């Protein structure tokens, strides 16, 4: 499919084409082109350009000739997949997505399964042998269309079937979903264009000085289905282990499964080895694709794929989620494989991730025989011990205390900043106390029940925010030593080379004058950081180990930050040198 000549408003990102302009086709279509140019199979697609968007705003309607070109574009997808838009026996459904050259929030997100109507639902039910699946596709499409094209503000996703979704849309907007798929498509394209000037999109551009008339492209892509027969399925593949970073592909496959099944956890997928047994050629093709995406992306990838009638389609590839340990391992492996430089590696691992790795845990066996003083919801990980106090003022006045409250209000934030750990009687993992503690990287246990404040106040306790347990007394802990772990040691050396400040483990040789934030009475500290006196050469104190403190120190031009753990501070300093929002 490299037929892009002859179109006025469309671009077809074909394999052999020259690189399309991002300004014209948007970032999403550009990445489709990139996958195709790597020789990978993605579901066929075409793009309506930003030029058509500009014409839409000039006309107040879709420009002349666009409707005809949309029909031709759909014809290309039909021909490539041997399916029909809006008709059986093998119906074609498409996704419709916005995509601007630069990231532009506030625009309409994706409409899936466009092209559905009663007839298509019947055809899809017959083809897949799964009437419930076909009904679900129709229901979801109706909810997408109602919200995004017809502008319904109802919670359409909560309705059980298509009929009730449509009734809710009509009650809310007085309009109904057209049955003609061509009409659905034209309306969706117009809605995407319109959304590029939504209130939020305009607010965003005004704030960041992006031209307000910058429009969007629209990508129309064929939907593929993993539940059509025994030679179909869907899955995800990580090119490296997301748990420890090992260079071993790790994945899951669900035969006769549709994308949502894997994500929703409704069905338990099988290890990827099942695909190797069932369809070795497809498995081999997937492994080749994974290797190419990993090398080309220069990072561990999380790849979503679907097999339809024995044909592999790659749906999406993006940098994989990972644990802190895996982030460190992968960054070092990429350097050793020659894919990235040490200077890049220190930007691939965040200060937060290293802080997570260095976090102490209760020493093995130390909790056996310890007295459980209270327990609740594990709301923010980490272990800390201190004397329990019941007011934010005491937490500020007595450094190293644990703040125990029935519940927290904004009044408590200073106390939470000062405390080594936070415990509440009420609330769960999403309470204000939990959100604030996680933002502060302070261990927190919530929902310990009524009476906890009275029971704990005045006692020395150990709070384990990872297990939700609170022990009487101070339990011994262990932690990873950054100077003994080979990966962390190498990263530290690179980070010091790339850091705008020196980070020292002790104040021994630090140049004067030294500013010690810990010497400021806590009562004088608000939510703001203290001002660093002009001429300061060295800063020290807990405040300057957190990312915002490091940023302030770098901005003030200090030479040395003294911190017990060097690497997280170095990484935060490195991150300051590239931040230009």
């Amino acid at each position: 499919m490299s037929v892009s000549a002859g179109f006025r408003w469309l671009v077809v990102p074909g394999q052999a084409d020259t690189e399309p302009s991002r300004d014209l086709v948007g970032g999403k279509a550009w990445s489709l082109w990139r996958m195709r140019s790597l020789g990978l199979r993605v579901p066929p697609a075409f793009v309506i350009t930003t030029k058509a968007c500009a014409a839409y705003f000039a006309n107040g309607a879709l420009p002349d000739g666009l409707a005809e070109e949309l029909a031709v574009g759909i014809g290309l997808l039909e021909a490539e997949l041997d399916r029909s838009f809006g008709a059986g026996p093998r119906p074609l459904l498409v996704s419709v997505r916005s995509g601007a050259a630069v990231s532009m929030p506030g625009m309409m997100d994706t409409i899936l399964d466009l092209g559905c109507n009663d007839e298509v639902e019947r055809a899809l039910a017959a083809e897949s042998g799964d009437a419930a699946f076909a009904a679900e596709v129709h229901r979801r499409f109706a909810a997408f269309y109602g919200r995004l094209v017809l502008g319904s503000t109802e919670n359409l996703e909560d309705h059980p079937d298509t009929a009730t979704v449509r009734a809710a849309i009509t009650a809310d907007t007085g309009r109904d979903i057209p049955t003609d798929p061509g009409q659905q498509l034209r309306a969706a394209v117009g809605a995407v264009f319109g959304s590029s000037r939504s209130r939020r999109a305009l607010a965003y551009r005004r704030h960041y000085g992006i031209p307000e008339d910058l429009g969007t492209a629209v990508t129309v892509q064929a939907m593929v289905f993993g539940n059509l027969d025994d030679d179909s399925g869907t899955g995800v593949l990580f090119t490296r282990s997301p748990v420890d970073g090992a260079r071993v592909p790790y994945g899951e496959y669900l035969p006769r499964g549709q994308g949502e099944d894997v994500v929703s956890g409704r069905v338990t997928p099988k290890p990827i080895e099942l695909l190797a047994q069932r369809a070795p050629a497809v498995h081999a093709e997937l492994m080749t694709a994974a290797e190419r995406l990993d090398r080309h992306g220069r990072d561990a990838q999380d790849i979503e794929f679907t097999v339809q009638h024995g044909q592999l389609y790659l749906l999406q590839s993006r940098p994989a989620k990972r644990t802190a340990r895996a982030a460190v391992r992968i960054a070092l492996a990429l350097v050793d494989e020659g894919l990235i430089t040490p200077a890049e590696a220190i930007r691939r691992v965040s200060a937060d991730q290293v802080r997570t790795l260095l976090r102490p845990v209760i020493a093995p066996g130390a909790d056996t025989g310890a007295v459980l003083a209270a327990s609740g919801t594990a709301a923010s990980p980490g272990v800390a011990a201190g004397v329990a106090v019941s007011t934010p003022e005491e937490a500020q006045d007595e450094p190293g205390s644990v703040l125990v409250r029935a519940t927290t209000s904004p009044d408590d934030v200073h106390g939470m900043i000062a405390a080594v750990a936070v415990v509440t009687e009420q609330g769960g993992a999403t309470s204000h106390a939990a959100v604030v503690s996680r933002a502060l990287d302070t261990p927190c246990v919530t929902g310990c029940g009524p009476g906890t404040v009275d029971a704990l106040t005045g006692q020395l306790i150990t709070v384990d925010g990872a297990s939700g347990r609170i022990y009487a007394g101070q339990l011994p802990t262990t932690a990873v030593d950054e100077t003994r772990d080979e990966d962390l040691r190498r990263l530290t050396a690179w980070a010091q080379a790339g850091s705008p400040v020196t980070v020292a483990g002790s104040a021994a040789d630090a140049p004067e004058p030294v500013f010690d934030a810990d010497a400021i009475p806590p009562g004088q500290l608000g939510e703001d950081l203290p001002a660093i006196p002009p001429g300061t050469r060295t800063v020290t104190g807990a405040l300057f180990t957190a990312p915002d403190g490091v940023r302030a120190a770098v901005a003030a031009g200090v030479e040395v930050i003294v911190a017990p753990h060097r690497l997280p501070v170095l990484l935060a300093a490195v991150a300051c040198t590239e931040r230009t929002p």
Partner: protein
Amino acid sequence: MLDPSQLTVHALTLRQLASADQIADITGQTAAEAEAALDKAVADGTVIAARGSFMITPAGRAQLDTAYPEAFAGLRSDPAVNAAMDSFEAGVNQQVLSLTTDWQTIKVDGQPVTNDHGDPSYDGKIIDRLGRVLDKTATVLNPVTAADPMTGRFVDRLGLALTRAEGGETDYVSGVRVDSVHTVWFQMHEHLLRLTGRERPQ
């Protein structure tokens, strides 16, 4: 309605230790108005000043507790406000807190892990949903906003925080030391509870 001086004292229950500018940002007063109001509060003993920052005193808290029922009598007896608050607590408040949690923590192999913001599409989806919830919040709180301009001001400040988060300033979703979505939401929640005389539900 609270008088201008009480309004600044009230703002100090939402943000402890704040400058006159920071108070003005919360109340919507001009900086000069806030300064004058704070000076009066200091003279009354409801606020203390230290090096450009202000803090509420126990007397200030007591005075507010006395003033609220009368100042917000109309609001508190309005069934539309009551219904709006029920909907706020059960709906958008839960959604914002759970989206903020999703923003901070992701699941890797079933285990919670700190979000390193390395996946723009994950972050983008959360910000997008936050945007929709904030739009809905404005609608839900309409009966309150109609009677209390400061609530409307919170809605605007939430929009500004979201815009900055959308621009890649990741602190502006749940950061504690900036006026992030969560910081402003936490303040607004407390403001609404004080306004309506409700208890903080869990």
